[in-house]
């Protein structure tokens, strides 16, 4: 699979060696035109996601987490800097974004079809993916017949159907209740280990970030900059209520609060 380069229009072309790297974000800035003039949302972000790595992006509102994810997904272009990914990444949203005119299984099959998998292989692969997210027998279910947690699992299966090296997740569990979210954390950890996919996971939930990630990246707000980075050495599998998870969460929360407090001082 070739390397996809998303570059700012004005930046000089340069190749990125993506060996061992699922996504390389280099000096990326993004600004949007507003009535008050150009507003800088992301400022000189540099970040690598290694093959098979699980990285969470953490930040308060206005840190441009989702903007960064859109850039990596290729849905938008950076104003400066370059982003290189190994193939087209898969993207999961906070809303399940499943197509209501298709059944759960057909949603997954559409992703397989769009990536060019031959027709005969689609159905068996779909069943495999449904089994992976523990939804055997849900093939013919309509989206509205599924619970919130089941919908997100179908959305995860659909994202995995793209067979991307990199899975981008934009607060995918934020709208779920606590028990369901906890279960989905376990599932995501298991699936990540089983598939070896690299994950870039955006959240504003510190515990969630520590529970899931090998590396937590804290972004400052307005504009978004990499403020701090932690390597999470806690042994997998983890639980969200583990003491080690709580301890690191306290430290990160302090840092996050500090970042937020700066915006109240003028």
């Amino acid at each position, binding site marked *: 699979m070739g390397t996809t380069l998303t570059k700012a229009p004005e930046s000089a072309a340069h190749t990125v060696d993506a060996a061992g790297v699922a996504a390389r974000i280099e000096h990326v800035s993004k600004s949007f035109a507003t009535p008050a003039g150009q507003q800088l949302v992301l400022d000189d972000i540099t970040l690598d996601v290694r093959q098979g790595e699980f990285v969470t992006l953490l930040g308060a509102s206005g840190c441009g987490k989702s903007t960064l994810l859109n850039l990596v997904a290729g849905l938008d272009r950076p104003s400066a800097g370059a982003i290189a990914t190994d193939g087209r990444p898969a993207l999961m949203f906070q809303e399940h974004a499943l197509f209501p005119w298709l059944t759960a299984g057909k949603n997954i099959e559409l992703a397989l079809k769009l*990536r060019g998998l031959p027709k005969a292989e689609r159905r068996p692969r779909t069943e495999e993916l449904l089994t992976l997210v523990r939804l055997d027998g849900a093939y013919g279910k309509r989206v509205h017949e599924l619970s919130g947690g089941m919908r997100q699992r179908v959305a995860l299966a659909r994202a995995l159907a793209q067979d991307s090296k990199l899975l981008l997740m934009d607060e995918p569990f934020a709208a779920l209740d606590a028990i369901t979210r906890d279960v989905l954390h376990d599932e995501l950890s298991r699936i990540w280990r089983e598939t070896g996919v690299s994950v870039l996971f955006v959240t504003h939930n510190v515990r969630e970030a520590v529970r899931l990630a090998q590396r937590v990246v804290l972004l400052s707000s307005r504009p978004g900059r990499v403020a701090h980075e932690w390597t999470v050495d806690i042994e997998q599998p983890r*639980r969200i209520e583990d003491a080690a998870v709580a301890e690191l969460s306290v430290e990160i929360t302090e840092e996050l609060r500090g970042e937020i407090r700066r915006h109240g001082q003028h």
Partner: protein
Amino acid sequence: MGSTETTTPAPREGQERDTHDLAGLEAGLDALDTVQTGRPPLRETLVQKVLPPVTAVVLVLVVWQILVWVKVTDGYKLPAPDAVWQEVENAWLQGTLLEYIWTSVSRGMFGFLMALAIGTPLGLIVARIKFVRAAIGPILSGLQSLPSVAWVPPAVIWLGLNDKMMYAVILLGAVPSIANGLVSGVDQVPPLFLRAGRTLGATGLRGTWHIVMPAALPGYLAGLKQGWAFSWRSLMAAEIIAQSPDLGMGLGQLLEAGRTNSSMSQVFLAILLILIVGIAIDLIVFSPLERWVLRSRGLLVKS
């Protein structure tokens, strides 16, 4: 159930819950959270959906009969219900009843299908190409408010008194409705679906086919429904105005013939048939289609 189940050892601290445990937990959550939906029983449907309109029709007939009995107006202005029924029976026995209906319905349906074939690509182009939208979008929605009977005189002059003129009037009436329905359907597609489609690789024509069209289907169907109503109305206007032996006897011609014969019961017969056909096509074709689409997407909320 499950009385012989052996107790599994509790997972140790810091250890992942064993996979069987997680699977069971998840199955429980799924079962608790899943909404049960089913279709209402037939009896309920009859009482809630069939009874009210039947009652309304019976009520209208009763009021009508009473008005005739108390002689609110001259007999030639208001025929009795049974006189109109007599008219139906005569037409049926002469074998002309179905002929009237078929002449008009076949014309209306053929015209509608042509309007569908033209309105669909037109709507898609207007919805997706900004320049075209700015150029003809306003004209298209303006045309919807133009009564299609206004097209009858120019159509007669251009095309003469023939079937072509009828179809021209139907097209001018129905194409804007169908195209506009599709445009508003496309406009209402949630941006999230478009983003999700793009990340899955559905761009350009593939995006239109796999994402935009199915997502716009409810709006499109509403446009089709309105398009049929406009087709039928346009056709009736054309049939009433355009009288010619070549055109055969449609419902519009029947209505006009009733007027020239000063036969109020024939006029009533024609009006009733026009109304019934319009409602029947909607009930038989469009409503089930619309309900099926909405139901399969979970958009049909039971009140």
